[in-house]
Each structure stands twice: as C-alpha cells, then as structure tokens.
C-alpha cells in the first residue's frame, strides 16, 4: 500500500520545497535569490522554463518586489509562492504586515539565516522569529521530508475560508536546505487533489448588494488596501487576531487529512513530543536541531533517565494550550532558542513558553539555552551537558542564571 503512494527521491530541503510547490497548482511565483534560499528558486525556474507547471515566474529586482508581486497576484485570485532568507525577509518587513492585513494567503518558504551585521550566511532563527508579530502563520520544520509535507499543507491552511492568512514555512539554512535526504514524494495527482486550486474568500459589499469574491477580477468594483482610521482599524486588527486563533484547529484538521493520504504526521500538527510523558526534564526546541536533541535524549532514555523533547512545529499561532497540557507535571524545562533578542530577558520562545506555564498551580523551573547563532554547531555533547544541568535543577540545585548562551566563547 505504502509503495503505491509515490516515490522516494534524494532531495535536499530546498529541492523538497520546490517539488512541493511544483505539485501544488501554484499560479504565480515571484522571488529574488539569496543564499541559502537560491536552490528553491532555481528549481522552480527550471520547472517553469520547461513548461512542467503553468505558473508564471516573475523575476523581480528585490525581495520587497517579490512579496509585492505575490500580493498583487494573490489579490487577483492566484495561488502564489515566494521564498527568501535573512536580509531578504528583512527587506519584506513592511509588507509582511500588509499581506496579513489584506488577508492574502501567500505561502513563503524562509530558509533561516542569521541577520547582518556581521554578514553571515548560516542558520539561526533571528530572521523569522523577528517577524513573529506580523500576522503570518509560522511553521518550523525538522527535515526535508517535513519541509515537503508542510509546504503542501500550507496552501490549504492559508486559503481556508475562515483563515485567509499568509503562511511562512521555515527551514534551517544549510542544515535542511542543503542536506540531501531521502524524501517520500506523493504522486502529482494526489497532491493536486489534496490542495485543489485557489478558491478566493467572499466578502459582502453593501453597494453591490451581495457577496462577491474578494478578488480583482477586472469587472467587480471592489477596493482592497483601504485606509481605516481610529474608528475601524482596531476592529480589523481584532479580526486578524481572532483569525489566527482559529488556525490551530485548521492546522490539526489539514495535518490529519494529509496523514490520511500520505501516512505521515508530526505529532498533532502543532507540537511533536518525544519521550515527554512522565519525563522529569524536557527540552523544548524548533527546527533541525530537534534531531540532534532527540539523538541525545534517546541515549539518555536508554540509560534510564526520564528525559523528553518537545518540538514546536508552529510558533504562530503559539500552541500554548497544547504545550501547557503536555508539560504540566514536568519539573524542569529547558527552552532552546536559536535567536537572540538583545536587551530582553531571554529569547522569544523561552518568553512565550514561560509565560504560558505561569498559570500552572505548580510552576516548573524554566531555563533558556540560546544556541546555534550564526550557524554555530550544536553538538550532542553540548545537549548532553544541558540535560545533565536540567537534571541537577530537578534535584533542587538553583540555576545560576535562567538565560544561558551555549557554545559561545567569551
């Protein structure tokens, strides 16, 4: 049965993303090259140049224009895709908010890379984590397979009639984007049937006296990108807040539907726990380093220690209810952030997770470990030492600091 469901290809993460886009009935692709995202746009260019897909590829002069082009195309009813990294995402910044504000279901792959200065091409999550308040749904994947699966799911989630929000699929620069793996590829028709074609949402327009698709069709006079002042702006923002709160159930639903066609799943679609049940200590992490952590944790479990890993698949929406549920009863939690937030008390994942746990009757000890900045390796030995530390805290040793930077020389 399983063998009938497609084939196995040796792909790196960037190619896996491109392949998913190829199969997802995308109408317009617009992107600007940046390391380490480039493989995605090179492959997509090839698919378009060879007529393998019907999509228009718009080769723009900047990331700002890449997202703008996708926005214009999405507003005209197209399914759109773009990809970027680091500085490119930073250049799009202004438009991240406009995309979600206009409720345009653009899907973007972000190949995570450190932000300048100093300039650096390697992985950390500072680029996308900084965009956490922009109203985009954010996934962080662990490997190429998940990158492939998540891009396909992203179109369905973004375009869901209750949601209509852009989705960012984050994959670690080089660790995932450039690492060759065996990736299970679904048959074209299975993916096409799963994602269908873009069906724009309707809006009710008083002067037309009816509901119309919120799309620039050339004929129906709708106005998108209007100005709303203090009398309505807040309500529009509230609708966005409410919409992203609904996303969790949609992610679970789409994840479950995908499980049925692919036989592949990642936890409940929001969180992916490993060994968390009955654990004394748990490490919380996002992205490719979860693999390293699982490797260490597996060995520790084998040695009889009660250690678990909780990988967050989504950071936006932040799955606080799910996290609280699986972590209640755990005494010590280490939160692994791959981003810095200079001047803050710890990095964003730590902050949000600790805040979510605050209302528990018996609060755990939560310590932040910031790692992997600018592509610095996270070695198994480092993870092992972190686990040992957490076990000590579990035995009553008070942490000297609740925010630790690991793997840095100073």
């Amino acid at each position, binding site marked *: 049965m399983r063998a009938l469901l497609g084939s196995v290809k040796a792909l790196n993460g960037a190619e896996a993303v491109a392949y998913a886009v190829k199969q997802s009935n995308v109408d317009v692709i617009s992107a600007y090259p940046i390391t380490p995202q480039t493989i995605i746009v090179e492959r997509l260019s090839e698919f378009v140049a060879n007529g393998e897909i019907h999509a*228009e590829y718009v080769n723009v002069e900047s990331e700002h224009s890449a997202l703008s*082009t996708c926005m214009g195309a999405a507003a005209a009813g*197209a399914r759109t895709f773009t990809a970027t990294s680091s500085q490119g995402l930073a250049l799009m910044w202004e438009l991240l908010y406009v995309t979600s504000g206009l409720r345009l279901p653009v899907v973007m792959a972000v190949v995570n890379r450190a932000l300048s200065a100093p300039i650096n091409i390697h992985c950390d999550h500072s680029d996308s984590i900084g965009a956490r308040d922009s109203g985009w749904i954010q996934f962080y994947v662990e490997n190429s397979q998940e990158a492939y699966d998540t891009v396909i799911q992203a179109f369905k989630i973004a375009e869901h009639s209750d949601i209509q929000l852009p989705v960012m699929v984050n994959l670690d620069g080089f660790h995932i984007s450039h690492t060759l793996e065996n990736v299970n590829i679904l048959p074209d028709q299975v993916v096409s049937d799963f994602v269908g*074609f873009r069906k724009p949402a309707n809006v009710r327009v008083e002067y037309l006296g009816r509901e119309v698709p919120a799309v620039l069709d050339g004929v129906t006079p709708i106005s*998108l990108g209007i100005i709303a002042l203090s009398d309505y702006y807040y309500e529009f923002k509230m609708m966005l807040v409410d919409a992203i709160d609904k996303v969790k159930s949609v992610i679970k639903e789409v994840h479950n539907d995908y499980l049925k066609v692919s036989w592949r799943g990642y936890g409940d679609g929001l969180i992916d726990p490993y060994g968390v049940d009955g654990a004394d200590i748990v490490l919380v992490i996002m992205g490719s380093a979860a693999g390293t952590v699982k490797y260490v944790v597996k060995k520790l479990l084998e040695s009889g220690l009660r250690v678990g890993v909780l990988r967050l698949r989504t950071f936006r929406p932040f799955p606080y209810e799910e996290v609280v549920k699986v972590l209640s009863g755990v005494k010590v939690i280490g939160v692994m952030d791959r981003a810095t937030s200079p001047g803050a008390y710890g990095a964003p994942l730590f902050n949000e997770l600790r805040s979510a746990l605050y209302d528990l009757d018996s609060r755990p000890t939560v310590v932040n470990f910031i790692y992997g900045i600018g592509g610095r390796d996270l070695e198994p030995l480092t993870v092992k030492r972190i686990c040992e530390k957490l076990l000590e805290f579990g035995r009553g040793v008070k942490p000297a600091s609740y925010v630790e930077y690991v793997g840095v020389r100073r």
Partner: protein
Amino acid sequence: MSSSINIKELARSKLKLLPGHRHCPGCAAPIIVKLVLATIDEPVVVVNATGCLQVATTIFPYTSWNVPWIHNAFENAAATASGVEAAFKALRKRGVVGDVGVNVIVFGGDGGTYDIGFQSLSGMVERGHNILYVLYDNEAYMNTGIQRSGGTPYGALTTTSPYGTVIPGKPQHKKPIADIMVAHRAAYVATATPAHWVDLINKVRRALSTIGPKFLHVLSPCPRGWRFDESMSIEICRLAVDTCYFPLWEYGGGVWRLTSRSLEIARNPALKKPVEEFVKVQERFRHAVSDDQRIIKELQAYVDAMWEDLLNRCAVRHS
C-alpha cells in the same frame, strides 16, 4: 490614430471615479483619473501607490472607485501591478479567465514614482509587463504636508526645502523621469496635462494600443502645495506648457514627437512664454519673484536647455 473624442458620450459614460472623494477643492489628480479611466475599457484593474489619491478615495467604509482597485504600499505599486498582470496570465492558462486582456493601470504620485517607488517601476519596465503606469506629478509629498521630492522643481519652496538664509528653496532641478523611462526602452512614454485633455486622451488611447510597459507623466497642479487659487489648476497647466516648463511629447517605436501646444510652440517659437509667467502665479516661488531674479534665471536656463534638447530629439527623428 486620434479618432475623434465625443465629449457628450464621455460625460454620460459610467463614472469610474465616484464623487464624494476627499481631495482638496481644485486638486487636479481626480481630473486626471477621471479622464484616463473614461478612456479605458473594462476589464480593468487599478493599482494605486500610497498618496493623496489613495487616501482621499478609500477611507473606510467608503470607496470612490467604481472599478477593481488595490493599494498595497508606497513604493511597490509597479511590483503589485506586475503580480496582477502575471496572475491574469496564469489564470488564463488554466482557463479561469477568458482571453479578453485586462487593462492594468497604475496611478502613482511623484513620491511613489520618482523616489521611493523608482526601483519597482524600473523592474516593471525592464521585465516588460503589459501595464500603463500613470504618474500624477504634483511635484512634492503633498499627502504628508508638502515635502520636496525628486519631482520638485528648482527653487520651489516645500516644508523640507524652505527658504533659508543659506539655501533658498530646492537646490536641485526636477529629475527627468519620463526621459529615464524612454531610456528603459518602455514601449510608450508620454507627457500630458489635464488642461490639454484631448492630447491626454489620445495618449492614453495610444498607450493602450501598445503592448508592453507604458508610462504617462501627467502634471497635477496642487493648490495647497503650490499655493495658488484653487480655480487656477487648469490655467497653471497651460502656463507650464506655454513656458516649455512642461513640454508635451510622446515616444513610441523609436520616435520622439512633440504634441499639441508644444508642437505649435516648436513651429512658432514666438509663442513660447518666459518661465516667470508660470512661476509668478504660485506662492511656492514667491521668493523667486521678489528676490533678485537669480532663481528665475537659473530655472529659465534649465527649461531652455531641456527644451532645446527635446527639439533636437524630435527634429532629428523627423528629418
């Protein structure tokens, strides 16, 4: 090409920019939009850069646009329009929309075109999208309260090029944006004013019959920013053309042509008025009039040189 224009039919055609917009009295921008859109058949999509036009026409819950319209941000109207055009191409390929071509029209002010939006405009033209970009040029950032732009003329006062004791008004000349579009090998480039409305309509028609990126540079007098009586907007366009401050020309198929009043002036140079005629009716140049004429002389010299240059380009091609 210039088939006759039936004004009585135009005046009874569907209004694509509705009244009730919040432009200042006497603003030329809505005149330009009305005339351009009256010339354009549906299906059409209008893309608007941030600016007076966008703000004055779409304060929620009200819109003045009776055609499909989108505003994205300040500097990306050309890129947004590129996406709209690409979407129609892709949707046509999979049979969602018919074969009738959609007219994609951009309206951008001088800030969104000369300055912050220049890069995305350059990209749009370089890629060859089939889009008509209309620049309504009121020669400063009027929406934010009259700050200088790349389109502000030499010597003009704005709130960021004030009349200082050291620097009297804007020290730089207006950027030759339409020339730059010609240098981009745009398919069609023209200048126009709402006063010369037959010329404007004919240029929109020629633009629409040309495949590829088209650029129309339209002078848009601003009573508030230029400081003149709000009934004067059209008259000031005439003075701009009569003084050759803003000559009317078009470029297409490798040929430069003077049009309308500017062609008459070229044929009869006695019609050319001194630039002071244009300057003296606007308070933004009040210091230039009251001062020692140095600013007017510099402006006149620049206008003369640009006009000579244009005459050469048009004449060379005609010979």
